[in-house]
């Protein structure tokens, strides 16, 4: 049976058994693209879609008030999105006992006709931490790429060149905050840039403000970003925000051996400490 049909069947079952009130899944949206759909009627589960255009990380909807109102959620996740759920669980943002998670085996998704960067180093084709996993009948071998390959470009530059590169990139930022809206980890009710008493960072879309915002966004994801790439995909200016996230993910792995989203029963990386953290840079 095709994976999509198996998925629709499972979703129907879950709604009929009243294990969940709403299924958050992929489907055709008004624009004709594949996007998020919210299905509460078991008869409408046939609208669920699963193919390689299902790029959105649906876990971002779990935090939204209007979705919470729909009741107990059942969410459909790919492997990369399942990692995001693990981090949300560690940070006490979701209650896994009050929700159902359907994982779909995934062999890569596309973004603007190109395979997404993250898929070349995917090690979660079969999603972890799920209640149900919808497998594919035909299997594919796991890709062999390295997660941090893209960072070589930055590593090959010296400090000045890197600054110039980021000046070029960030000068295009228009402060639309799409990166924040699409990030499953940005769940604060009021984001610190939206607070104005006191004003924490410059909100103007100048280089000064753009540096401040992008440093803030990246660093608030330190040790939390699971590399779903939703920020880069959402950026209308095409800034590769993933580079900053990957830098911090690599730093977390190298310094603390911590990879976000792999384990469900750990403490958050920033928020705990070890007396043995390295400190050769501190005098």
């Amino acid at each position, binding site marked *: 049976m095709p994976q999509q049909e198996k998925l629709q069947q499972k979703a129907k079952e879950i709604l009929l058994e009243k294990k969940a009130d709403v299924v958050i899944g992929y489907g055709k949206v008004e624009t004709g693209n594949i996007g998020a759909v919210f299905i509460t009627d078991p008869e409408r589960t046939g609208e669920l879609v699963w193919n390689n255009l299902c790029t959105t990380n649906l876990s971002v909807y779990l935090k939204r008030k209007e979705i919470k109102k729909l009741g107990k959620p059942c969410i459909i996740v790919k492997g990369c999105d399942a990692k995001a759920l693990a981090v949300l669980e560690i940070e006490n943002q979701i209650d896994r006992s009050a929700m159902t998670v359907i994982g779909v085996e995934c062999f890569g998704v596309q973004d603007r006709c190109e395979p997404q960067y993250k898929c070349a180093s995917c090690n979660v084709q079969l999603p972890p931490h799920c209640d149900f996993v919808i497998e594919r009948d035909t299997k594919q071998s796991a890709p062999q790429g390295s997660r941090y390959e893209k960072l070589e470009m930055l590593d090959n530059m010296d*400090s000045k060149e890197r600054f110039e590169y980021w000046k070029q990139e960030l000068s295009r930022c228009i402060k639309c905050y799409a990166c924040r809206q699409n990030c499953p980890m940005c769940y604060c009710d009021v984001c610190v840039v939206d607070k104005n008493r006191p004003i924490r960072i410059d909100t103007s879309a100048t280089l000064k403000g753009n540096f401040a915002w992008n440093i803030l966004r990246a660093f608030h994801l330190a040790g939390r970003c699971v590399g779903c790439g939703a920020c880069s995909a959402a950026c209308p200016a095409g800034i590769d925000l993933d580079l900053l996230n990957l*830098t911090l993910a690599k*730093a977390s792995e190298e310094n*603390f051996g911590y990879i976000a989203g792999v384990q469900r029963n750990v403490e958050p*990386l*920033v928020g705990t400490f070890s007396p043995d953290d390295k400190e050769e*840079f*501190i005098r």
Partner: protein
Amino acid sequence: MSSADTFEPKVIAFVCNWCTYLGADLAGTSRLEYPHNLRIIRLPCTGRIDFNLIIKAFENGADSVLVSGCHPGDCHYTSGNFHARRRWILFRELLEALGIDSQRIHFSWISAAEGTKFQKFIKEIVEKTKALGPYNEMKEIVRQANT
């Protein structure tokens, strides 16, 4: 005289209330002279030192920033400096990737009894910053934003 000789850097120090601030106090009461380029900002704990403050200092014209607090194990709040240390380890990597000059950000542990260490370290930072010159890259960005 070239401008390099007359350049007086601005150094912003974010220090914790319990150790480094008292270390600076001790340097003062012991009549240990240190360069006047330093502006000290006192915070309750190094754990309170938000990375945004460091960025903000640079935006407001700092040529160097010092972040200093209690030695590991001496924190007034038990573990504030341990938490801070972990954040700095990651934050330095981010700045490195962005090409922001990490030579201009200094970290140290200075206790309330280390007035001499404070004096020496400040002298060293100011000399180093003088050698690096003003942080023109950052100042240019700020100038653009303000015009």
